[in-house]
């Protein structure tokens, strides 16, 4: 694993997440994700690359809401990758993330079925950006047309930019230099992003927490998203 120059990792502290959905909005804005609209969302076609999964715990009146931000887990051993017949999704050896090539996708949706996190989003229709959303499209990112699968990329455009800047300045990428849109917008700092290969990085330190867990770890998908248990969970 350490042969790779970077091991981009996301830490999500569930203790800090308030379920405010700022990250969801930021993700839409950063990645040119269209808004599906009320009817489509009701059908189950919300386009969020990042969504806040809300689970209720207990019975009224002792009720607690638990929030789990959910997005592509950038699995090291991703189940979505081998099933694609046209290599539209593959594992990047450089960034160590799961890449989705929009132009190559033909829309078999096999990857989405095989994702245990149901993290992949399909373009059911051509995207629409009603006024004034069309004024703020991100030029670093393409707009995907109908019939194409997409998903969280760890804001790879920001990773690439930081890498290129660092290379131009002939130095390593500094910790904290790459911040995905969700992490940038989180008011409680629940998201921390960085390189796990750097033992001094914030992610590396947090990843050693005893609260750490990864989603559906038993499947052996090796996600690059690490959660920190929240609430009154026993952290012994």
């Amino acid at each position: 694993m350490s042969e790779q120059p970077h091991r981009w990792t996301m830490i999500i502290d569930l203790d800090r997440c308030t379920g405010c959905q700022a990250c969801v909005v930021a993700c839409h804005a950063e990645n040119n994700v269209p808004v599906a609209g009320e009817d489509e969302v009701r059908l189950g076609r919300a386009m969020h690359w990042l969504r806040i999964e809300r689970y209720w715990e207990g019975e009224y009146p002792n009720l607690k809401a638990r929030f789990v931000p959910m997005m592509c887990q950038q699995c090291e051993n991703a189940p979505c990758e081998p099933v694609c017949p046209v290599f539209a999704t593959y594992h990047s050896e450089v960034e160590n993330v799961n890449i989705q090539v929009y132009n190559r996708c033909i829309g078999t949706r096999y990857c989405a079925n095989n994702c245990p996190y149901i993290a992949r989003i399909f373009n059911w229709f051509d995207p629409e950006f009603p006024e004034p959303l069309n004024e703020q499209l991100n030029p670093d990112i393409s707009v995907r047309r109908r019939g194409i699968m997409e998903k969280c990329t760890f804001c790879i455009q920001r990773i690439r930019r930081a890498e290129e800047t660092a290379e131009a300045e002939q130095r390593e990428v500094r910790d904290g230099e790459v911040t995905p849109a969700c992490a940038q917008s989180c008011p409680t700092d629940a998201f921390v992003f960085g390189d796990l290969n750097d033992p001094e990085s914030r992610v590396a330190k947090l990843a050693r927490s005893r609260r750490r867990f990864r989603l559906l770890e038993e499947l052996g998908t090796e996600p690059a998203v690490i959660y920190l248990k929240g609430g009154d969970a026993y952290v012994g």
Partner: protein
Amino acid sequence: MSVKATTTPVLVVQEDPREEHLLLDPRPTKELNGMILEAMQRTGKGFWLAVIILGALILVGLVGAWGYQILTGMGVAGIRRPVYWGVYIANFVFWIGISHSGTFVSAILRVFKAEFRRPITRGSEMMTSFALIVAGMYPLIHLGRTWRFYWMVPYPNQRHLWPNFHSPLMWDMMAIFTYLIGSTLYLYLPLIPDLAMARDNTTGWRQKLYRILALGWRGTEAEWHHLKTAINIFAFAIIPVMFSVHTIVSWDFGMTMKTGWHSSIFGPYFVVGAIFSGVSAVATVLLIVRRTMKLDYFLRPEHFDAIGKLVLVFSFAWTYFFFADYLTEWYGGEAVGKELLTLQAHGPVAPLWYAMLITNIVIPWLTLWNRKVRRSFWGLLLVTLGVNVGMYIERYIIVTGFLTRNRLPFDWGAYNPTWVELLISIGSLSTFIFLYAVVSRLIPLVPIWEVREGQIAHTLRRVGRALVPSVAELE
């Protein structure tokens, strides 16, 4: 008719074997040829009406609805997160299943020299080819960007793209193409002598057509020798291909990590289900063909009797696999697996699931042991139609039902097909019937030479007052 002994009243009342068995009831070659040529050329008002209605349905479904879907987006179908695959994939699996009819009836029965196969091979081989054509459309209909389907074809190109052979979809595509080519050749080879017969007995455009299709067949000994060898090779070779096709279709599901899909039994389970559904479809189609084309001489109760027995046997086999799959899931007790079983037992798909158990297990088991049911038109027709309804439900539940439940309960969902999916499904069913109806008027639906070969090999001899069938071993 029964032969009654007039002198000694003790003698058993015996059925005339000539009435029962096609192979013991030989007719002169001319009469045989005449019967099939007449059936082939008879196109009444009903036929043309059916063809026009089917053609219209194809236009509405495959041009109208599919065109609308291509131009608007997959959103017009009912699929949604997390049910990314819907009716299209269920239809795909269903039609691949129907395509197992021809090969099973024709190749396996030919290899095992089951004599009852002789008049029914062609009719079922045609089903294989047409069902495969219909099935082959579905992966395209189902693609988000249909117009890019050729990216799955491995050929050197400027995009420097090569398909991913790790993907079960690629295995699928190759298996289906192999099967389509193999089964069409296997349909064509035994057809050549009959096409030559049709060439010699028709005039006009038909003769011109058959002259080309018959490839100059004259019926010399050398030609027969080559043909028999080729048919023999194909009959053996197509069987493993048939098994591979539905196994690979099942691997589209089995290779994933989805609970309910990820199962090593899916290969044989799907193959058995496909043969179950395919053989039932052979019965359904041939019953209708016998009625509409007046082929009572060739297709007799004995044949439907035999097919009915096969259907019953495959109902047993399917039930065994179904039970093995179900029990494993239930006993394993994994949380998602339990949810899937709950979904079937008293969830949204429960009515369908119980209907499947009734049409696939209860009805065949209660009826098909009975000779009278197997030999009656409506009895066998309804039972075999029911089996295919049940087998469709099975695929529908496996594809769309199982996708609604996942490991993370926040992402559970529901699925309902839309009118677009419905119209496309009707359009594809119409395509199958349309192709079958049109081609049944173009090529001899019963292999005359195979029937004659059987009739030559079987003779009735009179021993005392009894008629004893005697069989000459061929080959």
